[in-house]
């Protein structure tokens, strides 16, 4: 069930109505059933897998908390990691791992007659998101930061809650469970705020991301014959596409959750206006980057703090290889992660020199150049990210510098729609970033202007939106 489909909005409307019509004591059960129906709509057999994962993790969370002894506690923690990561590896990484192992064997034996035992199973949608969420939950219990949830219905909802089930945000237990304990009453502000957030998300997805997608796909599929200027332009647009696609999805997820009275974690904070890469990663896919920070980077760096900066380099490398690999089982995702870690290490090494330069330059100019350079690096690394293989990425990068020919822009209207979409999207972000106006979601700011802008946005979505654009990019992860 796509977040941009009519079926989803019918489902959401019926769910919100049913949720508030029921007495409050039944609402959690209702949401669990609604979420199960939502997941079954994708593929019924997935529900069995997620039910097993919920029961196992519910039980083991309690066991980790009950175990006071170090060995018993760490055994349960390790068992938990082994099983959750085992499920993830089985569905997502098995074919990649086995293919690479067999290729390695092939290197050593010239006449390898073994056939590779590939698995023909579909990756359950959302698996990477909810497995990470559950691992975070059990790690928090292990560290003593939270108590294990005793109410299995609350725990089920923590995993299943449909607005965040398929593409996150990767929610945290200490943020979500307290919301489940509160009595939720109907507030029309929640419906309005949620609705506005959904409209904004639809705009980003249907008007910006899917418009760019049509142009970008037609350029990249014929990359060999496209001019350098065309490849560069399409690559720059792809950065806006990925951002609009994923943050648009997140807006719809957060808006949907808000209608039920829940506040999910913000996943983006104007990342395209970041002044350096470390700032970018604190603003981009925040629920994943903060997860990796808390459960991978910090433990590595703090454990090896005697090593000084070398512990940071190690932490960055491991963390970003995990982030790259989390996106999928290809070497281009791994390279994407490695590139991020190398650039972040460069930022640490060049920090003092950059501070010196910034002191000699006009501050606004320095900031503008910093934003531009960060954007260009992100664009360059996203060329690797979007390519199925590393050689495909290299061909595009080489083509940008080498390929000659006319600039391809499809039709003037294609270009116009794309530029208008990106301009409107950034027109909300730039003033908010530089504090020129109040937050977009501020209910108190000029009521009439807000209502008018959302009315305009709905009309514009209907006029310029792409309604057969297909999947969200981040569904694949």
């Amino acid at each position: 069930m796509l977040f941009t489909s009519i079926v989803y909005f019918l489902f959401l409307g019926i769910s919100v109505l049913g949720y508030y019509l029921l007495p409050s004591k039944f609402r959690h059960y209702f949401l669990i059933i609604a979420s199960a129906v939502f997941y079954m709509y994708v593929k019924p057999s997935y529900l069995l897998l997620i039910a097993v994962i919920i029961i196992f993790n519910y039980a083991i969370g309690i066991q980790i908390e009950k175990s006071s002894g170090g060995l018993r506690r760490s055994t349960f923690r390790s068992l938990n990691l082994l099983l959750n990561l085992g499920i993830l590896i089985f569905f997502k990484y098995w074919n990649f791992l086995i293919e690479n192992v067999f290729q390695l064997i092939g290197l050593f034996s010239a006449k390898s007659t073994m056939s590779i035992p590939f698995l023909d199973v579909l990756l359950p949608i959302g698996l990477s998101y909810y497995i990470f969420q559950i691992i975070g939950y059990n790690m928090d219990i292990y560290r003593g930061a939270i108590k294990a949830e005793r109410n299995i219905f609350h725990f089920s909802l923590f995993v299943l809650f449909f607005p965040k089930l398929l593409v996150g945000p990767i929610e945290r237990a200490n943020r979500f469970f307290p919301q489940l304990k509160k009595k939720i009453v109907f507030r029309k502000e929640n419906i309005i705020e949620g609705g506005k957030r959904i409209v904004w998300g639809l705009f980003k997805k249907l008007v910006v991301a899917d418009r760019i997608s049509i142009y970008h796909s037609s350029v990249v599929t014929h990359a060999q014959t496209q001019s350098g200027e065309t490849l560069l332009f399409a690559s720059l647009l792809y950065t806006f596409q990925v951002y609009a696609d994923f943050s648009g999805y997140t807006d719809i997820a957060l808006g949907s959750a808000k209608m039920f009275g829940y506040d999910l974690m913000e996943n983006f904070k104007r990342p395209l206006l970041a002044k350096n890469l470390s700032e970018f990663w604190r603003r981009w896919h925040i629920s994943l980057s903060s997860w990796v920070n808390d459960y991978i980077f910090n433990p590595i760096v703090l454990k090896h703090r005697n090593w000084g900066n070398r512990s940071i380099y190690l932490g960055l490398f491991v963390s970003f290889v995990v982030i790259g690999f989390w996106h999928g089982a290809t070497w281009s995702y791994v390279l994407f992660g490695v590139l991020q870690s190398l650039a972040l290490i460069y930022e640490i090494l060049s920090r003092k020199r950059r501070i010196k330069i910034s002191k000699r330059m006009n501050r606004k100019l320095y900031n503008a150049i910093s934003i531009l350079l960060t954007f260009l690096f992100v664009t360059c690394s996203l060329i690797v990210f979007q390519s199925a293989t590393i050689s495909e990425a290299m061909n595009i990068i080489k083509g940008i510098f080498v390929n000659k020919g006319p600039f391809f822009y499809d039709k003037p209207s294609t270009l116009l729609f794309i530029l208008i979409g990106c301009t409107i999207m950034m027109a909300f972000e730039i003033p908010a970033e530089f504090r020129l106006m109040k937050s977009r979601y501020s209910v108190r700011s000029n009521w009439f202007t807000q209502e008018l802008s959302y009315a305009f946005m709905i009309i514009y979505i209907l006029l310029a939106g792409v309604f057969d654009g297909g999947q969200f990019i981040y569904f694949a992860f």
Partner: protein
Amino acid sequence: MASEQIIKEITSIFTRILEDDSISLNEHTTINDVDAWNSLNHIQIITAIEKHYKIRFELNELLNFKNVGDLSDGIQKKLK
């Protein structure tokens, strides 16, 4: 040592490491409240604090500090 005194001392450590004189800490301050404080320089702050007080935190203690108040309590426990 009183918690106010510890927060005063760690504020000067933060100021030195983050090269920002405007930093003002209280027990509720978190990493999100100080612009220059991030996970990359957090390790420098922790090692400077350990050196200053001649203490050594356990990994689990460090991972559970949520704000400056937790950090200050952790220092106080070690100094007892």
